[in-house]
């Protein structure tokens, strides 16, 4: 068994009386692509927010590469190499694509003096290579806010790669992208996983995408872990089908 990138032990999070996550435990293996599915409102994004440090959790523990991170800030977690993308795509809309990528360079070792430096040519080159990788090279000098929604998703993905993460939390990477672009995106997610060795933990509504992409899938329902296993097992799990479609 390979090492674990992310481990959750009995994580609970409630907003007032509404329990968004109850005793969720899961494991994401290093170098794997792991999926997280569940009907709307089942607590997937809350779980991502807990992992990435957006809010304190009520109980339980979250480990990244064996290290407890549930008390760390968003920035500290990002600097450890655990980076997330957003469901509502977030880019720097008034800056051009290259600048968007430059600002996304890793900040792990950045010291006070670094903020007054210029970007080294190899960083700019890397930014352009990544724009090429996601197919936005010809648009590199366009203001990011003028790109289409799908292109903005690709840009955000490139920014995440620029950050040189060890693991990426992707919140619905294909939502809102037109079907012909989806295959290209799946291909790039797989390449990021294989070529750069980045662990991917993906929330996805599109069943075709997640079954195609992930080796292991967790399913949440009403804040609790319902089932997990290989794509085949999940697809045929009666409880999962019922959670999505209701009992007959």
């Amino acid at each position, binding site marked *: 068994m390979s090492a674990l990138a992310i481990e959750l032990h009995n994580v609970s999070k409630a907003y007032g009386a509404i329990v968004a996550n109850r005793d969720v435990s899961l494991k994401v293996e290093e170098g794997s692509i792991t999926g997280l599915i569940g009907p709307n409102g089942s607590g997937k994004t809350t779980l991502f927010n807990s992992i990435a440090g957006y809010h304190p959790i009520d109980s339980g523990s979250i480990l990244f590469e064996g290290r407890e991170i549930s008390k760390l800030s968003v920035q500290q977690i990002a600097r450890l190499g655990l980076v997330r993308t957003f469901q509502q795509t977030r880019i720097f809309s008034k800056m051009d694509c290259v600048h968007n990528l430059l600002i996304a360079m890793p900040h792990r070792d950045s010291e006070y003096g670094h903020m007054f430096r210029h970007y080294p040519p190899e960083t700019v080159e890397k930014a352009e290579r990544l724009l090429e990788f996601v197919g936005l090279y010809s648009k590199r000098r366009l203001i990011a806010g003028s790109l289409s929604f799908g292109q903005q998703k690709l840009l955000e993905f490139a920014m995440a790669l620029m*950050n040189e993460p060890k693991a990426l939390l992707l919140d619905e990477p294909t939502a809102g992208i037109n079907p012909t672009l989806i295959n290209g995106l799946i291909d790039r997610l797989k390449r990021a996983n294989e070529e750069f060795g980045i662990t991917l933990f993906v929330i996805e509504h599109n069943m075709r995408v997640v079954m195609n992409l992930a080796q292991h899938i967790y399913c949440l329902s009403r804040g609790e872990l319902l089932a997990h296993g290989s794509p085949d097992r999940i697809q045929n799990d009666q409880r999962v089908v019922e959670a999505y479609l209701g009992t007959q």
Partner: protein
Amino acid sequence: MTPRSRILHIALLVFAVTAPFVFPNYTVAISVLWMMVMFSLTWDTLGGQMGYNSLGNITFFGLGMYISAVTQIAIRYDVGKYTAAYGAIKVDFTPHQYYLGLGLGIALAALGCVIVAVILSWILFGLRGPYFAIGTLGVAIAAAELTAAWGYVGGGGGIAMPVFPGPPRERGLFFYAGFVLVAIVCYLFLRWLYGTRFGLALNAIRDDEDKAEALGLHTRRYKTVAWCTSAFFLGIAGALFGNMTGFIEPLEVAYPVLTFNIFMVAMPLLGGKGTLWGPILGAVLFDVLREATWTYLLGWQYVALGLLITVNVVYFQQGILGWVRAKKPEWFGVRVEDSNVKASPARSGA
């Protein structure tokens, strides 16, 4: 630097050097113009580049003014006794003492303002949007009231500043040179700063601070340093302005919350916030209009300026340079390329 921009720089420099000799009667007014340019530039660092609209930058102006005044008096006399006499005590400073005090005062004003900016940043940068604006405004008002209530620095009665050792004309030129120098240094510094990673980081915080945090950017660090650079230059401006005016008091001179403080915001908005030249253009236009309304519309001057600000904010939010940028993006380095231009860098595949 393009030829067009070189001509602009040279023309402005020529104006800066010759103005007090060509228009000797307007030396003080043009000194104030340079101060306005600096007000505008330093406000835009936070308000335009970083998206944090401060309504309390005047705090550093007043603080610098008072730090400098106390320093200048203290090297020769007891500050408490001096201020208690409301200017009745005439302390004669030798030229050497005067310049020493002024130099020391300006240095301490800049330093003191930076220290206070660091302390304030711990409190204020937990706030965003309108809360930050109101928080900073609160600090400015509090600073004015505290100064007015503090007897040691003269309270509401103010301080008569040490007298410049020379004829009035020389005095005017001396402070004019000071303001020009500080405005130029401020411009060159910000121009360099916006060209480094720092500039991009400020823009990223403006566009989406949460995203910047999610990428691990040290946002707090950038915000604090940006606030400190504004405080540094405003502290020096305060010290110079106090000495040029000759008499300082808290509400009208040091912490004019409703005049200078609002002008600081209005000028970059008029010229186009978030650009380097917008705030400068805005400052020049606004200051000329201000002088004109004071001369030709006396009694209605605030109505006229208020109207200008209202029209600007309601109908023309992007400001002059913002409007030009929307019309002519290529002038600002925004390139739109055809897809048939060379479509890949030397190596592909990342």
